[in-house]
């Protein structure tokens, strides 16, 4: 059965490109427009991996990761930050919150797929 990956970004075009990249590689994709939307959806469905932006309205990526890590079902779920931010302090913050990896936008499809394959196994 195809793995379910959630893409969280307030940018429709980023969500679209992440979704496109993953779907054509055979993954199932669910989209969320911000952290809050994502957290609500994660609680209701089985997600195998999370790819989230950092800066978003309502709930940012760091807060989302912290919340998600409190869920027993998502304690070991791979979470990748996909953001324009590249500062070390931000990365450290993401790592501390429980992020599995960090991708600075823009991403190339093969990069994203290689990372997904690596963390999902």
């Amino acid at each position: 059965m195809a793995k379910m990956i959630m893409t969280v970004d307030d940018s429709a075009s980023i969500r679209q490109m992440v979704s496109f990249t993953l779907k054509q590689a055979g993954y199932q994709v669910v989209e969320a427009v911000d952290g809050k939307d994502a957290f609500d959806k994660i609680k209701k469905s089985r997600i195998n991996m999370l790819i989230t932006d950092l800066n978003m309205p309502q709930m940012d990526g760091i807060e989302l990761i912290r919340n998600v890590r409190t869920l027993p079902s998502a304690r070991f779920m791979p979470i990748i930050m996909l953001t324009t931010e590249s500062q070390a302090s931000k990365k450290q913050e993401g790592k501390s919150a429980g992020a599995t990896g960090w991708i600075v936008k823009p991403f190339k499809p093969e990069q994203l797929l290689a990372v997904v394959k690596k963390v999902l196994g």
Partner: protein
Amino acid sequence: MLQILRTAIKTWRQNRSDYKGFIVPARKIPDRLSEFCQMLDDVCKSAEPDFISLGRNLESLFSDVTVLSERIMDTVREIGRDSGENPFSRVGAIARSSLSKLNNCHSDIHTDLQYIEGIIHNLDKLRRVSAGVEKIAMFFRLLGFNIAIESSRAAETTDMFQVVSEQIHQLSSKVTGIIGGIQEEALKTHNSQTAAFDQIAKDLNRLRNLTNDADRTVETSLLEIERIMELSIEALERAARHTENISRQVGEIVVGIQIHDSMTQGIANMIEVIDDAVQIFTGHRNNRKYPPDRYSHLSSVISFQRIWLKESISTILNAYEKSTAAFNKISVEIDMLGESLSGSGLVALGECGHSGSADVDDPFPALASALSRLKGIIDEVNSLIEGINTSASEASDTADRLSESMSRVAEISSETHIIALNAIVKAAHLGEQGRALEVLAQEVKKLSDQTNEFSAGVKSLLDNVSTSVDELRSRVSDEPRNNEETSGAEIDTGIEDIAVVYKRYQKKTGNVCRQTGGIKEEININVKRISFLLNLADEFDNLIRYLDGICIPNKLKPALQERHAAAIEPPADEETCYIETEEKSGLLTEERQIDIINAPSLLPDHSKKDKMELISESSNSDDDFGDNVELF
């Protein structure tokens, strides 16, 4: 005087504006910058549907290309799939096996003909031998007649030998009738066997030539098909490479589409920075107190946004060029993908406009035709075998009937022998009077013995015929010959399979061609639509002009002018320079410093590598995902 005063005021104002770099009066600057921010926001938001639409089109295009690629590979596999599943390989093996069997069959039929020839020869001899029996029968009749004459000389002998004479006469008539029937039947069978022999020999010769022709055609077709199968495997590899190249080009466009996100974030940041700078400029930040160098601060902020806009234009144009180039490369790859099908030398693609090996005959119909002919030959060979079988049956029936007839002749001969012996005894009793009759009776006995000898000869010939027939039948019913019917059925199935596969292949090829044309049209439309990026760059350029209408660019700080003119990177140096200036002026808050540092550039930031390496304490050196990826 008034005029002089007006000129003086104008000069003062101009000098004042020139010095600060601002063209519009200070009270109008906040409104003009607010309008600028609104326009910037509008430009960004209005571009989003175009990016989304481009993304959707790209998805659709990629989906179509994926389907096309699968169809091409599926079409090529139709011809070049593994030999075990390939109908051409299977039919080829059947055809070669059938040809080999046919050649063996020709030799067998040739041998069969020798048996028939033997039957004919024996029948011929039988006719000659039976003619001898007929002569004996005539002698019997003659002796019977003489006995009648001789016995009629005296009443005593007349009574005694009249019956003998009549019996001999009757028996000789029977033998003559039987021998006549034997000769007639032997002649008839001889003629029909000879006719069958001639026909089979003639047909065999013709079929040999046809088989040789079919052998050549089948072999040529199979060799050509084997070559095409090998080419089709190469075509599959080429198609896979083209598909991979297309994926790579799609990736370039995916990267291009993402500039909208960077642009959105950059613009949001810019609006915030300008708003903050306006707050400082109007004194709202410091309880209506104007900072000492408020013009210089605002001028610096505007100049920085101007640089950002210039860089954005450069990034947008770069994305346009890369995406256009990517679409064009995809178009070329689509052509090459199509050519991987036609280039395999399969068939002319018709609607695609490509052509396969036009100078080479299409080997598939040629193979089907050769197989049809082969099937025809096999059918004819089966008819020949059937003919041989019929001949054998006829010869067998004839031999059975003739044996029966010869048995009757033998019975008559025995009967005659007994009559002759009786006659000899009777003649002996007559003494000198019966001397002549005794001699005649002795002759009857001798003839009877000769008849037995001839009968034995005929019987031997008939046995030879029967033996030949039995062997012929045994050969005809041999297993390899029966297999020919199986081969014929398999060839029939093979011909149908080839027709089905070939029709399916042609249909698939037509579909691929139509789809290739559709995708190329799709690409052309996308290339036209992507010009929205040029409009976006124009709008950014207009926004720069709008800024120029607020603040004169050549009055900007020298370091920023250089940066502006060259649009060089990295921006971090300039940001630092700018921030240092602002920090010295005491106007820039800590939050704003972070905002400006974080303002995303649309250009790929090569300096990020250094930044990433600084924190890459757990970076995974084993996996080379790229400079912008780090796994914790």
